[in-house]
């Protein structure tokens, strides 16, 4: 890249906002996957107008711009494979307003989601989406990937809380969509277009997010099963019974053993599978009743043991454990490839069965856990990148996982996004017409193809 561009970038953000050393470029080359690709320059803007100036410059010079938050992503969506500018939003980290009357929070894109939650909870308010990366991901990244999480079963995903966005377009124009109104049918729903667009259509710099009242009580049950088949059937039975608990999480035996090795919480490592079920609400009685009824269903479906978290510490530990499953799998092997296929909930038992069969066929372990309540499973293939045989196998295994999801009327990804890793399967998942629409939208908003090129949309 022309060094002249570096000095122009410095004029926009100041010297401290532009990084070019080999060390800086190296650490901005990865995300939460095993992929790598180095940017030519790293830029950390502090205002929307700086982002606008950066994009004007990038358009003029036809330089790729890959937007990035804390890079916890699991789809290689924020890796700058084609070089260019790594646009890092982490320093735009201000909570601009907590509007108590309207229960709306106005944030900059770089705010850490857990910080946002704890700030609004001080006012009795609640921002429900809770991706496992909640402490190490930004709200901008969450919106750009339409992040989910365990609580989405009851409360919905990130996109359900986006009321408005400030977006910088590829040519540098700043535009606002949506606002502080709950209902708004004027024009196309553009905020939904940018939500989940993974940095390919524009750069999200600010957001207005809807909040709700914080539930006062929660009861958490840890339910043991002798097999994952029994556990997954129970999930359906609970939902069929008319209950919508806040969370309904599934983990198989390997997952249990990994977190136990990592955190020593006294989890039952001999259980075939666990369900982590939480019921929350404004009344203590109501959560008690719900969890009691769910307990009965679990017993009917062969639960071998049911324990209820006795206090807040106990409950916090269980959730800390749940959030640590994915990384703790690395105790078993140097690399893992976690997908997040999602199927209609009546097909969960078949999905689990199919995944086990794939694992058996290729002889590489697939650990299964996930948000079973909404049909969103996280099969993780454990492998070693240095082993060429493994590399060949995982490619085929992933393809079969996707095949399985589609054959069960499901989708490739419930919450991680497409990024680079799922791009080869897009045609099959969406069909020609949908891909055509995607391409036309991309062309309309980013005619020079500088925004996260080579991601999401297949060639």
């Amino acid at each position, binding site marked *: 890249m022309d060094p002249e561009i570096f000095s122009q970038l410095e004029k926009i953000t100041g010297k401290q906002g532009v990084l070019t050393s080999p060390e800086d470029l190296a650490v901005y080359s990865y995300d939460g996957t095993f992929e790598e690709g180095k940017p030519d320059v790293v830029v950390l803007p502090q205002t929307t107008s700086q982002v606008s100036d950066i994009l004007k410059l990038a358009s003029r010079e036809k330089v790729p711009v890959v937007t990035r938050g804390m890079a916890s992503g699991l789809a290689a969506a924020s890796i700058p494979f084609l070089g260019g500018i790594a646009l890092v939003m982490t320093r735009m980290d201000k909570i601009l307003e907590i509007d108590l009357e309207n229960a709306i929070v106005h944030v900059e894109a770089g705010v850490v989601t857990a910080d946002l939650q704890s700030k609004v909870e001080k006012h009795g308010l609640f921002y429900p989406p809770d991706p496992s990366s909640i402490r190490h991901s930004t709200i901008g990244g969450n919106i750009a990937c339409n992040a989910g999480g365990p609580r989405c079963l009851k409360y919905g995903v990130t996109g359900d809380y986006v009321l408005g966005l400030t977006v910088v377009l590829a040519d540098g124009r700043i535009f606002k969509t949506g606002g502080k109104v709950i209902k708004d049918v004027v024009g196309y729903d553009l905020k939904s277009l940018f939500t989940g667009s993974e940095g390919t259509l524009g750069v999200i710099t600010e957001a207005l997010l809807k909040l709700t009242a914080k539930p006062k009580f929660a009861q958490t049950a840890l339910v043991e099963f002798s097999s994952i088949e029994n556990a997954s059937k129970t999930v359906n039975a609970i939902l069929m019974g008319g209950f919508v608990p806040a969370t309904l999480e599934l983990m198989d035996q390997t997952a249990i053993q990994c977190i136990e090795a990592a955190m020593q919480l006294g989890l039952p490592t001999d259980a075939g599978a666990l369900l982590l079920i939480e019921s929350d609400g404004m009344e203590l009685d109501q959560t008690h009743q719900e969890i009691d009824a769910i307990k009965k269903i679990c017993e009917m479906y062969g639960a071998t043991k049911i324990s209820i978290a006795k206090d807040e510490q106990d409950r916090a530990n269980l959730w800390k454990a749940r959030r640590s499953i994915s990384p703790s799998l690395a105790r078993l*092997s140097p690399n*893992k490839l976690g997908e997040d296929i999602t199927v209609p909930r009546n097909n969960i038992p078949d999905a689990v069965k199919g995944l086990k069969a794939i694992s058996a066929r290729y002889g590489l372990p697939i650990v299964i856990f996930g948000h079973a309540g909404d049909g969103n499973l996280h099969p993780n293939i454990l492998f070693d990148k240095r082993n060429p045989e493994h590399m060949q196998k995982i490619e085929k295994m992933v393809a079969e996982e996707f095949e399985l999801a589609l054959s069960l009327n499901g989708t490739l990804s419930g919450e991680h996004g497409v990024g680079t890793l799922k791009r080869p399967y897009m045609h099959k998942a969406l069909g020609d017409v949908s891909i055509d629409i995607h391409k036309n939208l991309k062309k309309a908003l980013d005619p020079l193809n500088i925004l996260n090129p080579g991601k999401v949309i297949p060639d």
Partner: protein
Amino acid sequence: MPFDPKIKIPDENEYLNCIRCGLCLAVCPTYREYKNETDSPRGRVALARKSLEDELLLSPNLVEKMYSCLACLACNDICPVGIKPADIAMEMRHVAEQVKPTPWKDRLFGKVVANPDLMEKATWPLRVYQNLGLRWLVHTLRINKLFPKQLHDLENMLPRQPKQPLRQSLPVISKSLNESKYRVGFFLGCAQSLMFSEESAASVRVLNRNGCTVITPRETVCCGMPAAGYGRLDLVIEQAKTNIDLFLNEDPDVIVTDCATCGSQLRDYGKLLADDLDWAEKARTFSAKIRDISEFLMSIPLEKPIGSVNARVTYHDPCHLRRAQKVWKEPRGILQMIIGVDYVEMPEADWCCGAAGSQLITHYETSTRILDRKMENLASTRAEIIASGCPGCQMQLATGIQRNGLKVKVMHPIQLLDLAYSQQIEVK
């Protein structure tokens, strides 16, 4: 392999399984200040790996990123995979030092710091400066206002120096006041002897009062933490051997220290010497006997103080105590045992204060930014006393308190217990 096989490098199993999930970013004080991956644990692990795998040069900038780590160990603690980014940063400092040795470190850590007589001589000007009234003069005439900001902070950071290092005045054997039940080796740290002698004098008094005969060997040398921090793990091993022999010869039931940093380093001797056939066993025995003073006191039938200390008190967790030694309940337990203490828990009590050895000297801006966060939390407690059993933290906290114009006294938790025992209610 980019390095000579003689150079000791981290084992690949220490970093290979880092899946770069980013969880460590959430708890890293340097990342949280700068929001820059290069100042994060995940970034440091990636840089270490890439230099060990010959993808990056061991450049001055790369080495500096290893030195910008505060070694607060929060990343080690949170990693579900068991990667220890802080340890890797420390080992990479050692790699750099082996590749390109710095002569002054040899003199400072190998000769002066490792020799208590020389340490006392080297710090003599400070004692003179303060005790002859020069410090008073400098402050009264406001000469210190002419100092650059950093020097100004450093000057404020220094506690009032004792007239004489404690090592010279503390008897080698201090007998238990009652029936002697425990033979305690007391590891008197350099900073405790030279600067916080009143605290360690209090520690010995409290031990004597609780059935301990205390042995403080005069030839004790530095625990080795400063050398380790500056990449000289080789010197730590020499210092470890001196201390191990010295203490094991006294055959103590336990070895107690009231310095969080010393304690964490002493506990590490077993691991440091694990591969040395002649020393492994002795080092393991030595490390197994190490106790922080609060930990030891809470493990014996401790005399409940009748005297009171009437003050609102909070507590700051030294990283070297909470994470390196997993001691955090005990000091709080001691404080809450004292009549009159209105104990209030500080938000983020276990977040690093930014002292981290000599970061206020080497990384002034980062250190003060992290300190400001600590001061905000401290102010929110409205405490009159902040207790913390680490000389580095104490100096840093005192600096922050002065910079922010707070009215809070910094003390060692054991001093408060000693105060309650002696019933000298002079606090406030």
